């Protein structure tokens, strides 16, 4: 089924905004509601918009299954490397060794501050990013597998 050009144009216009919103939810995961999973789901719904607006043969040129699978694997690897990296310096599994005074995300949270500081949290923002990558890859692979099973020309 061929979608109308209204749907295609709307999807093209809305896609970058949904992408920015999902990335915002992921990056601010340790400060505001949301986090890796929610932001990844929002990013995947943006990918879904492209998949539904275009035909399957067209949309697989934009959203490639190999890329989504590598996103998923990269997210999982990043998460487990971030968890294991604390053991290199002699601390326990998942120890947040970056939190006070690390080279990135290392600021100390000001006491009683009303203004949230993005540069805090240590390993937690990195793990949010890893979970976001993993979720967007996994859900996109599921949707591509669902769409590829339809015999009708989408």
């Amino acid at each position, binding site marked *: *089924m061929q979608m109308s050009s209204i749907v295609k144009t709307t999807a093209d216009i809305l896609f970058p905004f949904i992408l920015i919103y999902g990335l915002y*939810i992921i990056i601010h995961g340790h400060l505001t*509601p*949301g*986090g890796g*999973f*929610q932001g990844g*789901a*929002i990013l*995947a*719904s943006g990918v*879904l918009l492209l998949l*539904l607006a275009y035909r399957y043969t067209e949309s697989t040129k934009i959203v490639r299954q190999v890329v989504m699978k590598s996103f998923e694997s990269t997210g999982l690897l990043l998460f487990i490397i971030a968890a294991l990296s604390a053991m290199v310096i002699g601390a326990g599994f998942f120890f947040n060794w970056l939190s006070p005074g690390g080279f990135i995300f290392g600021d100390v949270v000001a006491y009683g501050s009303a203004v949230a500081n993005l540069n805090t949290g240590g390993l937690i923002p990195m793990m949010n990013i890893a979970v976001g990558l993993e979720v967007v890859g996994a*859900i996109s692979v*599921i*949707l591509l597998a*669902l*769409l590829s*099973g*339809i*015999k*009708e020309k*989408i």
Partner: protein
Amino acid sequence: MIEMILHAFILIGMIVAAILVFFFKDLVSAAVAFGLFSFLLAIEFYLLQAPDVAIAEAAIGAGLTTAAFIIAIRGTARQEGDEV
């Protein structure tokens, strides 16, 4: 008082949406009613001071699940009880 009225409206709307999902024979209408149910549930979560769950419910329930149902309906039959 105004919060109670809002809660009552949303909960009644959720019940109506769930009953509509049961009674619709057109499966696309049923999927859209299920999306409405998820949307109202997300608003209810937000009213109950759980914005984290509300974001997850809005993205997964109202967005991705509805789309997955519609993709599956496209692959099979539109009406309930049809032969494929």
